[in-house]
């Protein structure tokens, strides 16, 4: 029974989306707004298929930047959150600054990255790291705070070492928090990579967008947006799947 519900759950959203697209197509056709202002969905699909090979190539670059940045952010945030949890003074020094740093718009930092690190992958990756690092660190820090004191005490009493307490208790205890942070980060990561690419370089969906903008090819722009959305959704779903895999105890009863 459950399974059927799961399949039908997204139907209303899909239906509504289909309706919107149809509506858009009809409006664009009736009003004859020029294609370079508002392309019809069919124009976008055409642009998508014409640029398929190119978009595929650019997507690879964007994905590479997004995933490497995400990977670095994951390692950094686990280490920093753990150290902050262990050493109170470091948390007091670091955590408020971390929160404040989030008020700086990423679009303002990306150009600095470009000036410092050129037009290759590095500035894009660093932009992704900066964006993804925060939600991860915050959620892991929250998770570590919620670890049950008694669980750790029981292990200490039977002679567990710090390393064993980390593996048997702290790491699994933060997983649900880690994954809720990761789900946010993973969608940000594509966006951050694209912003990095806007400012320079010769590969990536962001680069493709800038080039389309310069030639007023709005259909291409829309097709690039579509690619960004699809990439983000795929990454999100993969993250959900991984979290399902590694936390079997969190699964709802399957009937």
């Amino acid at each position, binding site marked *: 029974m459950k399974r059927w519900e799961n399949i039908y759950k997204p139907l209303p959203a899909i239906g509504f989306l289909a309706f919107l697209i149809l509506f858009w197509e009809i409006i664009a056709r009736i009003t004859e707004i020029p294609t370079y202002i508002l392309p019809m969905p069919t124009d976008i699909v055409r642009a998508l298929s014409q640029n398929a090979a190119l978009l595929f190539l650019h997507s690879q670059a964007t994905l590479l930047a997004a995933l490497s940045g995400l990977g670095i952010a994951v390692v950094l945030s686990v280490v920093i959150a753990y150290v902050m949890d262990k050493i109170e003074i470091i948390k007091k020094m670091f955590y408020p600054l971390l929160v404040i740093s989030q008020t700086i718009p990423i679009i303002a930092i990306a150009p600095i990255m470009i000036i410092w690190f050129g037009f290759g992958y590095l500035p894009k990756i660093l932009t992704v790291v900066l964006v993804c690092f925060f939600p991860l660190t915050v959620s892991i820090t929250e998770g570590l705070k919620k670890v049950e004191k008694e669980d750790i*005490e029981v292990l200490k*009493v*039977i*002679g567990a070492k710090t390393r064993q307490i980390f593996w*048997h208790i702290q790491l*699994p205890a933060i997983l649900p928090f880690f994954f809720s942070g990761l789900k946010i980060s993973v969608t940000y990561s594509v966006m951050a990579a694209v912003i990095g690419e806007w400012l320079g370089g010769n590969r990536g969906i962001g680069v493709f967008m800038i080039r389309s903008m310069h030639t007023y090819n709005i259909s291409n722009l829309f097709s690039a947006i579509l690619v960004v959305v699809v990439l983000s959704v795929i990454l999100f779903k993969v993250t959900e799947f991984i979290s399902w895999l590694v936390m079997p*105890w969190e699964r709802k009863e399957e009937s």
Partner: protein
Amino acid sequence: MDGYVLQLKNIKKSYGELEVLEDINLEVKQGEFVTLLGPSGSGKSTIFRIITNLTQPEQGLVSITPNKSEQNQRIAYMPQKDTLLPWKQLIDNIALPLIIKGEDKHKARQTVRTMMKTFGLEGFESYYPNQLSGGMKQRAALMRTFLTDSDLMLLDEPFASLDAITRTNLQEWLLGVWQQFERSVLFITHSIEEAIYLSDRIYVLSSQPGQIVLSLPITIERPRDLSVMTSPEFNQYRDILYKTLRENSYDQ
């Protein structure tokens, strides 16, 4: 065989202004089942935290006879709160003391598997704690405590959250495994009947500050079954304990 496993001498403990324990003296002999009986807040759990070195007393001495096998002092401790880890299957939860000691995971699991039946948990090896009933969880936590190789077991109200029937069953069962494994037990409860039924000796604690107001040997013959609960002997013990508790419990 007659040696002490645990001795506490003149233990005193406060949390800030609050005096929790005052001049606690108690002993557990090899193979003995000793119970701490006292009202809520009398400092029973605090005594366990002192024995396990999770907190330090201001005064007094804790001496634990080291294990025969190792000089490394381990204590089998089951806290009041449920501490089965939600992310580990039952078998791995129970094997934890063996794993922490450095045993290989497969070997540890094997050891646990052979003992599951004794603890009434056969067939539930791969369940997660949230899929189990309260009684089973307590049995699992007890089994984990038994697997800590230590002569001394500290059990903090292991049956408090269970319904009457499950509780009685588990008491009976605990006596069985205790006899089988020949451990020394220090047990906490605030149920008078539970204390009498299980113990060789009962220490009664008063309300704050917790002081030992009675040390009562229970000489009901072993092995005991549930029928002893209706014997005249049992009733006498109950009267004494009830009276002592009434006189020494007050609300703050």
